[in-house]
């Protein structure tokens, strides 16, 4: 199968959907060259740097029958449009009694590893997850990003596509033929029996590397990528933990009230899944600090495969399946 980068897969998804539906148009401060070349200035609109305006204008245009895409670029810039996101987009369908639909795609790059320092390295998706009325996803592969973007553009609600800064140039197989991926469907990236690692975006790849390393020791790691944050595929997460009895959650965001906390709650508040747990749930997250610039500092703040391996060993140890127990196998 041919390979595309994460970025190319996104552009291809948007181009295909814009060809399919003339009601789709795109607003951003710096237009994407191939989309501008194909669709022109009317549908690939260059806006002033005025995110509050464009984020809100998308709501109005959507309520009038269009399907706008607003590209905030870095998620950081969405923060100047918070009224439009929190008070308007998330609530407008509900507070007006469902009388109109608001199909909008917002795009935002998240995460660090790019030495962009505190403002442009954030992973604030749990802030948005906390609002009722927004759907959102954060894929780990070009294939998943393309399929989810196409579904999101066709969805009749505001959807946020969080896209990982670290993965922009990463290649992956993407078929030529048309496909979509449903929102709310996790993907088991590697099947295993001893422990479940629920991971997002770049950390899916780190978890897969950790699993590969531990496989040499006879430890079987299952890697679950939720892909969609809202709605979250709780069934797949719970059934994986039900099978393995152990859980590590890896997230590039900090732990406090984060995605990782939500997954921990989803697993532990379900009686049958909880009953299968053989050890406390362990989270592998960024340190709870603003993201620093110098690579030495940045690398210290973010989790990676080494910390995932360590966490897996700790959970196995706590459940009585540590080095000693494994040596007997």
């Amino acid at each position, binding site marked *: 199968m041919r390979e595309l980068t994460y970025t190319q897969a996104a552009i291809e998804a948007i181009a295909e959907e814009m060809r399919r539906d003339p009601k789709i148009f795109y607003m951003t401060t710096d237009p994407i060259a191939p989309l501008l070349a194909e669709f022109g200035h009317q549908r690939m609109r260059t806006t002033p740097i005025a995110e509050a305006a464009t*984020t*809100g204008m998308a709501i109005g245009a*959507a309520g009038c029958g*269009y399907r706008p895409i607003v590209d905030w670029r870095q998620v950081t810039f969405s923060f100047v449009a918070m*009224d*439009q996101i929190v008070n308007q987009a998330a609530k407008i369908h509900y507070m*007006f009694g469902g009388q109109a639909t608001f199909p909008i795609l917002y795009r935002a790059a998240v995460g660090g590893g790019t030495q962009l320092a505190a403002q442009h390295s954030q992973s604030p998706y749990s802030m948005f997850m906390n609002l009722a009325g927004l759907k959102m996803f954060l894929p780990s592969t070009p294939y998943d990003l393309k399929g989810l973007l196409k579904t999101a553009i066709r969805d009749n609600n505001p959807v946020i596509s969080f896209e990982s800064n670290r993965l922009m140039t990463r290649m992956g197989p993407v078929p030529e033929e048309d496909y979509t991926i449903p929102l709310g469907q996790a993907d088991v990236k590697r099947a295993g029996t001893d422990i479940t690692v629920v991971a997002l975006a770049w950390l899916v790849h780190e978890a897969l590397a950790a699993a590969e390393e531990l496989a040499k020791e006879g430890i079987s790691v299952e890697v679950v990528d939720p892909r969609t944050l809202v709605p979250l595929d709780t069934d797949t997460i719970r059934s994986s933990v039900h099978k393995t009895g152990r859980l590590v959650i890896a997230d590039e965001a900090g732990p406090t009230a984060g995605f990782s906390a939500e997954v921990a709650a989803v697993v532990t508040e379900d009686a049958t899944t909880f009953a299968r747990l053989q050890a406390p749930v362990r989270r592998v997250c960024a340190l709870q600090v603003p993201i620093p610039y110098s690579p030495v500092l940045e690398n210290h703040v973010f989790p990676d495969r080494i910390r995932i391996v360590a966490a897996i060993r700790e959970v196995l140890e706590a459940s009585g399946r540590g080095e000693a127990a494994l040596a007997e196998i």
Partner: protein
Amino acid sequence: MTSISANLPPDKQREMLRRMLTIRRFEERASADYHAGKIFGVVHCYIGEEAVAVGVCSALDDGDRIISTHRGHGHCIAKGADLNRMVAELYGRQTGYCKGKGGSMHIADFEIGMLGANGIVAGGIAIVTGAGLAAQMDGKAGVAVSFFGDGASNAGPFHECLNIAATWKLPMIYVCENNMWAAQTPAAATHALSDVAARAAGYGIPGLTVDGNDVFAVYQAAHAAVERARSGGGPTLIECKTYRWRAHTERRGLPDPRDRAEVEAWQQRDPIGLLERRLREQGELDVAGFHAIEAEVMRALETAVAFAETSPLPLPEQATEDVFAA
């Protein structure tokens, strides 16, 4: 302004009066019902500002779109909203515009191009500018109107949207209802310029200040702005100087720092009284005619109240419906 009113069909002038009177009586009833405990949360009355909503909306076609503010009942009625569903919404009933989920600050009727009241000052300006963009892309000469107050003209979205609308020549009319007070704060304390309309110059668009209590003056300005917008000329900023008679909200114990003499002076310039007097002077309305309009308004309002009172309350579990569209 007689030249303008002389050009309007008498029926249209009487319809303006009927709508303004409907707003006045609706708000009086909403205030009374709020204090009687039949309406919950908060109510912001539009009394005194009726000529703005009616003057502007009388210059629009059915397909044109508007957006409102937290003080939204007047804009709904001026655009032709159904009183039954409005009162039902205030009463928190299933039959209300928002099925009881919105209340006074979130009444909307997308069918008639009323894109909603909004609890955030300046919150609607960007949304309706998107409706203006939609109208431009539709290519059917539709226009969109943003109603907002003097307070909102100091907020970022006002400036961002005027710049975009001017740059893209969007078919927009920005109507600033300058009632001189942003909640408890006098406009003079927070505005560098006395006229909001002067800000239009910064965006290269026309800016007019009109007497917001004179429905014909408002209509004339709106009509010219609508013509300009429909023909591709881009946006206009219209500042309507007016005044709200009641406190910022109907909440009990809310301080009203305004000088009573100031309130009374504006009440002497009652927009409904001004219109009624002018119609009588023009010979287009007699006492009996006025009473007939008044009776029609009260009948419609009583019907709406009866509809709301006999409408079912929502079921508690309906609170989880309509979070997402299908």
